[in-house]
């Protein structure tokens, strides 16, 4: 494959245009090229006004999220030779569009502020000791690079009228809840304030996560179970509380 490839990039400036359209560009193919390379080529050599967002080009910062041939993906991690010669790149649909491929993801900061941060248990001896095995669970969630692709694919998040925080934020809460020295339990607040009940475990989020976090099984279902414990099983709650010296956040 050495000839040009064609990419269709969604172009739309909501401030000056009524609707968007796909524009086709020819880009010379380079071995091992990723979709981000093709869009950057357009921006640097064909039309500097194409708006894209990227930073690390290494799959590490979570900036370059887009829908590539309909699938929420990182542009810098999607190899052209793996998706064929017809490529369409569109912005994430779950977030308000800023321009072309760039969306406004700032509502995530507001949600993040609502989830209580790491709060160490009281009376821990210094320096803190943690069994090496116990860091593993939380570590899975801490791999999250905040690409928000899981949010993009989630049908509940897309239907903007629910209070659901969305998968990224359950992952965040789980990363603290499963931190061995954290003293809070966020499951109840995820349920009550965060609308976690709206999630019907379709697992679409897990499928698109570039960090291969088992969002549904390991974060959402766990938090849902905890929340159920909290609501319907006061005795279990008391026992657990004693054991873990936890405070429930309302």
């Amino acid at each position, binding site marked *: 494959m050495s000839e040009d490839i064609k990419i269709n990039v969604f172009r739309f400036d909501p401030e000056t245009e009524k609707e968007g359209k796909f524009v086709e560009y020819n880009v010379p193919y380079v071995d091992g090229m990723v979709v981000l390379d093709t869009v950057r080529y357009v921006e640097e050599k064909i039309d500097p006004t194409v708006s894209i967002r990227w930073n690390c080009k*290494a799959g590490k910062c979570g900036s370059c999220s887009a829908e590539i041939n309909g699938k929420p993906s990182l542009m810098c991690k999607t190899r052209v030779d793996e998706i064929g010669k017809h490529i369409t790149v569109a912005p994430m649909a779950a977030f308000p569009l800023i321009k072309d491929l760039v969306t406004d993801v700032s509502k995530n900061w507001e949600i993040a502020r609502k989830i209580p941060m*790491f709060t160490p248990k009281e009376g821990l001896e210094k320096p803190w000791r943690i069994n090496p095995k116990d860091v593993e669970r939380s570590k899975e969630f801490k791999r999250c690079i905040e690409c928000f692709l899981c949010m993009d694919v989630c049908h509940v998040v897309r239907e903007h009228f629910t209070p659901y925080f969305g998968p990224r934020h359950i992952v965040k809460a789980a990363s603290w809840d499963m931190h061995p020295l954290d003293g809070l339990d966020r499951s109840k607040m995820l349920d009550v304030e965060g609308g976690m009940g709206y999630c019907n475990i379709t697992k679409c989020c897990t499928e698109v996560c570039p960090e291969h976090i088992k969002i549904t099984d390991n974060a959402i279902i766990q938090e849902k179970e905890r929340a159920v414990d909290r609501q319907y099983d006061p005795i279990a709650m008391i026992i657990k509380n004693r054991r873990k010296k936890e405070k429930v956040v309302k």
Partner: protein
Amino acid sequence: MNNEIETVETDVLIIGAGGAGMRAAISVNDAGLKPVMVTKSLLGKAHTVMAEGGIAAALGNVDPKDNWMVHYGDIIEEGVYISNWKMAEILGKEAPERVLELEKYGALFDRTPDGRIMQRAFGAHTYRRLAHIGDRTGLELIKTLEDQVLHRNIPFYDEMYIVDLIRKGDKIIGAYGIKMDTGKTFLFKAKTVVIATGGSGRVYKVTSNSWESTGDGVGMAYRAGVKLRDMEMIQFHPTGMVYPPGVKGLLVTEGVRGEGGILLNSKGERYMLKYSPQKKELDARDVVARANYREIMEGRGTEHGGVYLDITNKGPDFIKHKLPAMYQQFLEFAGVDITKEKMEVAPTVHYMMGGIQVDAETEKTNLENLFAAGEVASGLHGANRLGGNSLADILVFGKRAGDAAVNYARSSKIEEIPAEEIEKIKSYVMHFFRDDGKNPYDLIDRLTACMSENVGIMRDEEHLQKAMEIIEGLKEEFKEVGTKGGLRYNHGLLGCLELGNMLVSCEAIATCASMRKESRGAHARSDFPKKDPAWKVNIVTYLGDDGNMVFEVKPAEEMPEEYKAYVKPEVYE
């Protein structure tokens, strides 16, 4: 185009939201003053997110003999005796506190069997010293600080590109920025300013650095009359990916060698046994990088122009557990399973030791109320940086810069900014909008290629002269660059603005490299292969009154007599 300008007043303006910027913002907030933090990428995406191997701190958890004095000695020796000794002392003493603070904020470090923070070996550190979170230490650092910033409600503006600082007398009274997502322009009025804009790696073609590392901080500080130092000192990391071309330069963490990976040439020889029989693969970065370079140049390289890095002997379980991100990176980008196959690697531009000259204790620049911390600041690392010391640097000196800015801001007031100052910057920005403008990215391509070819890992006068000529030419052509469209999310405009800053770094790097007629640390010259006592100096660079770059040679700072016991005496051949 939108003519309105929004004004934001603050006690401390922090430019940059990497580790250094965020830590500074936390200091200011916790002292009860108002910080405003700006970043040209999204919050949480700063270059720091890419750091892999770990953060150096003499906690002594794994090797109890470690302490700040040993760390200090390692910094000075690796910096080849031109580091600022006071900064090295501060880092050695304060890094452990900052690591424990990060743990308190929620960072979950890998553990020793008895439950303490695990520390791994890294090149040229005497002891196992790097606290780490697998090979994703930077991500954890950024996300942990981001959570603190959000919950403290620290005001921030992301995707805000700062074009220039505004100076009055010996003070910076504000800064001018473009909010990329809205296209609005902003005027920040501040009592004090902290620059934490990271490095300049993107001035080279092959680099591990992210898009934003174009040396904007160096550029804006230089234009405001701030002094720079050690600009010739560019660190080449020994192991960047070479194939496929799209990921050329992408970092392969030193952690691979720290965990037992070995380097081989195409003949299967473990050549580090020859170049460095004692420390082998874990010698200092400049030593290993030059060894890799020589093997490649002398025809013992691999198919794609690299050398082999092999960790297969450690087995899949170990590799996937200790180096999960590397395992994924090679599998996804190159289709290589590193548990079974060797990696192909070559040197890549990684870190800028040079930058803004600061006072060791307060990170103050030569201006009264301007501070700088993190990769943009200079002094600590001298002629070469030890792996892991940058993450320690950004926390230790980010905090100190924040604290010092607070002290200054308490007895200072916000000043009015003259309209003509604003107008000056505005017209600089607007002059790039023209129909016949040259494409900035074509110039950037030529500039970065020139730097990689002529100011690379092995330098000589002929190539450096050539580089300076090309840079002069590009400075002329820069007057003709332009773009179309508006202020909103316009990468053509960003290319123009960034190119202006990149040219400042490049001119300083190439000229200082040509001045320094010796080989020291990361600066290696084939025409002056030896270290020379006459060059135990720092080169200071600033904007002269005539508009040209001025260079001053200053003897390196002498450490106090009692500290000499911590350091091997410097030897010259």
